[in-house]
């Protein structure tokens, strides 16, 4: 979850205009997606964040019943502001109008302006008055159907020999989402998905889709039971050293990603096929105490083999969620996993303390790899972590941290501080120390590595807002990996440096200049030697971006980016990307379109460039551009009627001098790849 406090003190001027116009919420998507701790997917499901904000925009929160957690969902409010709104209600009674917000000194004009988009004043809805007839009128439902496919034939679909690896299904992608919401007290959701290449009503997918997910959520059941989720849910506690399901934000131009503030128990609404819990969980609050017990049983995909004693053991777990080939089919949902645990937290004034426990059991023994770098990985069938976390606000300083221990293994610790040193300047520092024998499969914490282990680092960042127009952000992160890693045959270290200057035309546009420099080390096998040495790998990235709203109908966005990859004594290469985006809105906003034309030229994959792409609702792309060619896409959104929206997307990449695109089963003959997506949503 995004830390509200951080957002408030670090990027208010930058982020606020973004919220003002619904269309520009896409900008926030881009900012968030660039800071996901795992940037690899071509398509990222941002529904967890986007859905929440859109839902509040559509169905504003009632100031007379709103809870602190709901206000915290509006990521631009600080804990102090949230407290002041609730205090106002206690002191002066129910709100009569949203205009009363102006009498709360902690809220400035711009915050009020934004807050008005997401709140309103209604008489409180009372749970005990619920009866089926009146309740049903307040129920909101939505169904969303999505279809997509790559238009060219990929090699995996053309294989006729059943003994060779091939895709068992067709190249179509289907997804269906259904959701029901009653006054934010009862929520029901049911999601279904089939990825490209996966069988549909065949093989192990005899019931149709490859992935099903659903939940029923009851909120504010009574004074003590704050919520209960039956079905799929996610858990986010502390700084993510033990449990952090769902989206996790890390380093980036927005320093707010560093300080996490766990949102606790949330229903799961994404299409990702892993990293969530399936079972039952609840949050019970008594006074200053809150406890969140949970139980989950899920089946993961992975490889099970017989060991020397003839016992079945787990040799790998596959988190891709793809079940397209005979091997992937054989491994589908073969690993049975049982989780249980709890988080106990205590909140008083500006202090929050928490204790988290997680137990993970596998039916079979999970084996660690045999490579030297895997020497300290967990092996066994029962994994437990126990940890404590806290956050505390003292004057203009926000302190946060977590410490966790794997039972029978190592420790992980992180500690951070955000300080609003001046109305124009904020600083953030963060220290992390994750031991090489700490293992937590559901951990997502600030760091450089993809796992929370084998890493020490210190991050320091500043954000400076001299006025409404300028923002300057800079950070340095220096880190060490004390033990070996994949493709790094020795202890290694690195640095990540980013500096960014943004000039904003209020409500109209902005100009952004960014430079990022990264150094890491990895193996290099030099000629004449028989063992790997560690070589410094340098990445330089320079980006200039301009976007401007020309009028109510047209908006443009341009970017030029240069990157340089330099692996000491091994390989060097440059890359460049230029694109032009155009956004159009017509027929009173009923029809919206945006398109991109991009030219890219990089020396191979190592000098690749990632760039955010607009996509259909809930989906955001962060695809990689490499080699030489042109990429273009067109997105359309048509508001067919009051409750019906339709999206269409066509994207195409044409490479120069290529006889095929992609590799393995995804290989396409020719020099281009194109993709379509269609999506329909009906709300009632």
């Amino acid at each position, binding site marked *: 979850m995004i830390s509200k406090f951080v957002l408030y003190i670090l990027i208010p001027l930058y982020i606020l205009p973004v919220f003002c116009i619904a269309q520009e919420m896409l900008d926030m998507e881009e900012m968030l997606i660039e800071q996901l701790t795992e940037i690899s997917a071509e398509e990222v499901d941002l529904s967890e964040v986007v859905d929440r904000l859109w839902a509040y925009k559509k169905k504003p929160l009632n100031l007379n019943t709103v809870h602190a957690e709901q206000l915290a969902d509006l990521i631009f409010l600080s804990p102090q502001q949230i407290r002041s709104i609730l205090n106002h209600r206690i002191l002066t009674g129910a709100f009569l109008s949203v205009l009363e917000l102006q009498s709360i000194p902690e809220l400035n004009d711009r915050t009020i302006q934004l807050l008005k988009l997401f709140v309103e004043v209604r008489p409180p809805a009372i749970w005990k008055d619920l009866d089926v007839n009146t309740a049903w009128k307040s129920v909101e439902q939505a169904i969303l159907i999505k279809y997509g496919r790559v238009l060219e034939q990929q090699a995996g679909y053309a294989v006729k020999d059943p003994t060779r690896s091939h895709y068992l299904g067709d190249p179509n992608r289907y997804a269906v989402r259904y959701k029901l919401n009653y006054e934010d007290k009862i929520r029901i959701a049911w999601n279904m998905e089939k990825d490209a290449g996966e069988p549909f009503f065949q093989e192990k997918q005899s019931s149709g889709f490859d992935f099903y997910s659903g939940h029923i959520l009851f909120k504010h059941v009574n004074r003590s039971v704050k919520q209960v989720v039956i079905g799929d849910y996610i858990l986010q506690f502390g700084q993510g050293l033990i449990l952090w399901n769902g989206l996790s934000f890390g380093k980036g131009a927005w320093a707010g990603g560093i300080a996490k503030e766990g949102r606790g128990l949330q229903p799961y609404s994404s299409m990702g096929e892993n990293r969530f819990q399936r079972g039952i969980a609840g949050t019970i609050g008594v006074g200053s105490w809150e406890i969140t017990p949970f139980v989950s049983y899920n089946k993961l995909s992975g490889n099970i083999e017989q060991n020397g004693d003839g016992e079945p053991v787990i040799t790998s777990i596959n988190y891709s969620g793809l079940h397209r080939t005979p091997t992937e089919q054989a491994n589908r949902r073969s690993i049975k996993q049982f989780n249980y645990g709890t988080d106990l937290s205590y909140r008083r004034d500006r202090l929050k303390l928490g204790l988290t426990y997680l137990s993970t059991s596998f039916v079979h023994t999970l084996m660690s790899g045999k490579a030297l770098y895997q020497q300290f990985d967990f092996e066994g069938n029962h994994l437990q972590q126990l940890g404590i976390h806290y956050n505390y606000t003292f004057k203009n300083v926000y302190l946060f941290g977590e410490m966790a221990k794997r039972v029978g293994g190592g420790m992980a610790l992180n500690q951070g501080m955000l300080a609003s*040193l001046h109305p124009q300047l904020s600083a953030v520092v963060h220290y992390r120390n994750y031991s090489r024998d700490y293992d937590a499969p559901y951990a997502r914490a600030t760091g450089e590595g993809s796992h929370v282990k084998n890493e020490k680092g210190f991050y320091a960042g500043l954000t400076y807002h001299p006025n409404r127009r300028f923002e300057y952000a800079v950070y340095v992160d220096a880190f060490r990996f004390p033990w070996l890693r994949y493709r790094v045959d020795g202890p290694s270290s690195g640095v990540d440096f980013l500096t960014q200057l943004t000039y904003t035309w209020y409500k109209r546009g902005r100009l952004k200049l960014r430079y990022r420099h990264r150094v890491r080390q990895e193996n290099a096998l030099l000629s004449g030697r028989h063992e790997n040495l560690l070589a410094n790998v340098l990445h330089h990235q320079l980006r200039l971006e301009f976007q401007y709203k020309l009028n109510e109908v047209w908006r443009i966005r341009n970017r030029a980016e240069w990157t340089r990859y330099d692996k000491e004594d091994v390989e060097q290469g440059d890359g460049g990307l230029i694109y032009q985006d155009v956004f159009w809105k017509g027929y009173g906003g009923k029809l919206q379109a945006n398109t991109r034309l991009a030219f890219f030229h990089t020396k191979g994959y190592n000098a690749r460039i990632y760039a955010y792409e607009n996509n259909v609702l809930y989906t955001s792309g962060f695809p990689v551009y490499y080699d030489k060619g042109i990429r273009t896409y067109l997105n359309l959104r048509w508001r067919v009627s009051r409750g019906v929206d339709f999206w269409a997307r066509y994207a195409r990449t044409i490479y120069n001098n290529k006889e095929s695109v992609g590799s393995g089963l995804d290989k396409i003959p020719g020099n281009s790849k194109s993709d379509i997506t269609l999506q329909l949503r009906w709300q009632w």
Partner: protein
Amino acid sequence: MLFKTILLLLFSLKASAQVFNAAPFLAMGNTGLAQGSLYSISNNPAGVASLESMAFGVAYQNHFFSSEIQSQAVFAALPFASSSTLAFGMNSYGLQGVANLLTLRGSYAKQFGRHFSSGISVNSHRYYVTNYENDNTLSLDLGFQYYANDDITIGALARNVTKAQHEDVVPAYIPVEFGIGFYYKLSTALRIAYDMYYGLYTSLDYRGGIEYAVDSRVVVRGGVASHPTQYFGGVGLVLNKLHVDIASAFHPRLGTSPQLAIAYDF
């Protein structure tokens, strides 16, 4: 040979060896080009021009914590008529009783009007290994500061403009570098410094620091430098005319180098 190797390791750390920054500058990432202080003697001599009274200071630093490598420094400044200041500095770096780099500095700085000051520093560098080698050389530093307004100062430094070096056999070199610095008082409590150095024998070095006054007596500082990537931090106490500052560099591999500096304004 082994002895020479140890010495090479000892003195090849440029930042520690030849240039000494006292705790307030060290804590802010070894910045200081655009600041005025007694400690400017070993940083940018133009910085002592703004002193209004006589000042004296000492500093002691332990490099890489538990090792025997130490620095000691002494600073003294005497402002006199016509906005001029004479200053004297001494800093030594080395293994006590074994090998040592000693730098003696004599500086003269003068303010020209409200906006500009400059300083010159003559430095004597002595390299000494007990019963082994001994070498002396002289270098010259030129410094400038421009006070754009009450809040912004810009500093510039040409270090070792004469390109003086020790004899070839000496495993230590005197940096030849040019620096430009920026210092901004964001408020009475908050200051930011940014310095950039171009060295003849090294790559560009970027340094940044921040200073925050928790109250009128306690100042907290932090900084970062790019070559090598190091963090810095420190705390300063102001007890009337006495300034006590502690600071440390945090090198990701070599560890911490804590320093204590004490100064008195007469």
